[in-house]
């Protein structure tokens, strides 16, 4: 599968995403410059973490206007698998490709730590290889990861099974202290209604090797290899 990783000015997780695919997944991967206008050469797209455009104004608020974003929207419309991680998740909500918004952490401080998230749905291209209920250990590193949506949207997300990752303790129980940013319903990651776009605050691309703290991220990234093929075939 051909992976594309979008680089905006200020992206800094693009390196990790490229390395995770290259070293962790051993798949072909290329960086895509934000001024490009086509994603025709790719089977799936990663929008990496960082501080696109310095996070000035609001995280992701300027990146949504970057030239590449029209191609991202088109790729999404055709059912192509897209994964937004951290700032990538923020960009996707700002672009309206995922519902809701990401607010400053409840602590009002940046948080860099390892967290546990439970995979609630395996019916997305980014979780297809993971059994429902599996708990993953992944790092977070963000100042604005508190997922928020209005009550109706939130109810619809829950009803549709669009909550894909939720913060839990190591045993998969929702627990005080397990949620690092105060997100509503302990939400760590969601998908769109069509389920091809997934955004999450934790960093699967930073967890592809035991020596750097864990390799659970591989499970997320490799899911697209199995299930994503169906999604690719379907578009």
């Amino acid at each position, binding site marked *: 599968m051909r992976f594309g990783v979008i680089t905006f000015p200020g992206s*800094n997780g693009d390196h990790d995403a490229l*390395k995770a695919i290259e070293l962790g997944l051993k798949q072909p991967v290329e960086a895509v410059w934000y001024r490009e206008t086509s994603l025709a050469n790719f089977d799936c797209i990663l929008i990496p973490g960082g*501080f696109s455009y*310095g996070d*000035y104004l609001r995280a992701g608020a300027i990146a949504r206007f970057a030239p590449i974003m029209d191609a991202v929207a088109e790729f999404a419309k055709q059912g192509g698998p897209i994964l937004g991680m951290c700032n990538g998740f923020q960009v996707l909500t700002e672009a309206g490709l995922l519902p809701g918004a990401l607010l400053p952490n409840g602590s009002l401080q940046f948080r*860099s730590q*390892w967290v546990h998230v439970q995979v609630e749905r395996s019916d997305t291209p980014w979780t297809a290889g993971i059994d429902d209920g599996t708990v993953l250990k992944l790092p977070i*590193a963000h100042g604005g990861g508190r997922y928020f949506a209005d009550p109706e949207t939130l109810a619809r997300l829950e009803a549709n099974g669009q909550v894909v990752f939720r913060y839990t303790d190591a045993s998969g129980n929702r627990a005080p202290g397990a949620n690092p940013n105060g997100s509503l319903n302990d939400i760590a990651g969601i998908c769109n209604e069509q389920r091809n776009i997934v955004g999450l605050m934790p960093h699967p691309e*930073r967890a592809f090797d035991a020596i750097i*703290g864990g390799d659970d991220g591989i499970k997320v990234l490799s899911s697209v290899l199995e299930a994503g093929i169906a999604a690719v075939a379907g578009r």
Partner: protein
Amino acid sequence: MVEVTAEVLAEVALSSEEYRLIVEKLGRTPNAVELGMFGAMWSEHCGYKNSRPLLRLFPTSGPRVAQGPGENAGAVDIGDGLVAVFKIESHNHPSAVEPYEGAATGVGGIVRDIFTMGARPIAILDSLRFGPLTEARNRYLFGGVVGGIGGYGNCLGIPNLGGDIFFDPAYSGNPLVNAMCVGVAQRDELMRAKASGVGNLVLLVGADTGRDGIHGATFASVDDPEKSHRGVVQVGNPFLEKLLLEACLEVLQTEHVVAMQDLGAAGLTSSAVECASRGDVGIEIDVALVSRRESGMSAYDVMLSESQERMLVVVTQEGLDEVRTVFDRWSLHSDVIGRVTDDGLVRVLDNGDVAAEIPATLLTDECPTYTREGIESTRTIELRQFDPLTLPDLGSGGTPAASDALLMLLSSPNISSRLPVTRTYDSTIMTNTVVGPVQGDAGVVRIKGTKRGLAMKTDCNPRYCFLDPYLGGMHAVAEAARNLACVGAEIVAITNCLNFGNPERPEIYYQLKRAVEGMAAACRSFEAPVVSGNVSLFNQSGSEAVLPTPVVGAVGVLDDVSLHTGSAFRDRRMVYLLGSLDATLGGSEYLARVHGRTAGAPPALDLELEWSVQEATRRAIRQRLICAAHDCSEGGLAVALAESCISGGVGGRFDLSALFERATGRQDQTLFGEASARIVVQAEAGRERELEGLCSELGVSCLKLGSTSGESFVLSPILDVSLSAIESAWTQALEL
């Protein structure tokens, strides 16, 4: 022509004697722009006029050294054709005035120093000193500095691997903010800031130039720095720096860049002068060609602005288009502002008219240096003679009981968990972090594409340096090396940042000189040369100077990064004390925290024993004989054992009776006495005999203390407390 009055000289921080020297060497009186350039270049920050003779005492060469002091950063060979490029630098004065921006631009400056050398920055560390957090002003400074370090470094996407933090009343109003950056480059691709090739073009890249930071050099010489200088503290733009970082590393892959020099202290003046001086050429620039942030700026303003995120790049004429294409791609503005000449002069034009013309070396090599006489303060001599054992032992004469004292020490801001700070710094980005903050005694990153790893740590116990600067200087190096050994690495080189008070005072000069001599002795012993560094003097308000703080930033190599350890104990394994059996309370955290005294003679340091203990630990890690190692430093053995238990979430029963007996029954000395050459290790199950054998082979004492398990923390025959009690003391003390 300005009239040169005492006020004019004070503004540029030059003495009348120095002015006389300038006139003599120049053969005429300097104009205002020239005088400003001399002031900046002959400041301590750029010219090292008080410290240069002392810095010559450091060993700076060795088989691994690829670049010693004198460039933007030092570089050492780490194998596989790679070099580690690193440096530490102070941003104390700006941080005292505007803590967030002061610390942020400190990070920005040191990171630029690393990528200017052509190295990819891979880690940031910080060594911080503040007054007690019981004072509101200190809390404000602490919060602002930590916020600025995180705000800038997180945006750049460089992992922060910790460093060290220390609090003492001597830093009230004079915080120390030292930032260190480590990068990696191909040895044969190292770039230098040495202009060459007459006719080559001088390109100024990055931010537009504004009035911020003008007169940074005079910071320390005004009565009310806050009032006068808040407006001149530079404001950082980490987003712009990220673009500059990527673009600069990209243009260095072309063949067209001859030299690169970032604009830091003294801005365009210092970068142009240093580039010309190092290359033994001249440089001519026209300030009219510099893009400005505001109108009405004079040549003086442009030459002395310290606007951040700017880079001077010397390129060949034929390569200009290709280089500018790269900068354009990263949306970075670049101006051709001048060219390299053959006359050795730095010539500044203002729309064609000569605004300044000075031989480059006059501003660098001919900066006067001062060797002063140092005299130790009698107060220090008296304090050092204090015998801590004249104080009542724990549980008697008003001194708290042993278990209470342990909780007091664990909740000391100098000992408690650094997690509240380090969790606000991104430590996992770049996917190299093997041992992150709070996980071990030093940070460890892997080098992708090789088996190797790099370990790094900053250290300095300023109390030891205050009580005995020579010994304290040695300790700073030895402790940094010990911390590297505890993760399995061997020290290869250091960088340092010498933070002292006013060197014109004999007792301060004494501290500086003796600390440098002590560091130099330890560096020689460890065969760890000094490859870069920075000096920050005049850290004092009124007559109160900061504690002498020669911060060491040490870098070590792990040939096989998979063989490393952290400091957390595991369940049900044996714990040993390697090295010194005796400790002292002189200069200890215990004396300061429990008795409110900074006094006594600091622990002695046997450099050979120190090396043996470190070597035993390293070998034990490489042979997988141990699963945890932790240095005994502030707080002594009891604190080291407690920290490793808390980190591992496991209790332990340890028998200290042999040590208690050696300490002639003194509980305080047994538990909290401090010593060098002392490391607590935990043996892997079934490897205890081999560990003992290895130590005996190296002549290192290996004392079995006990084992881990359960929910109690027992140091027999002295104390017994619950794991949860020590855990909450240690983890809940520091608040951001």
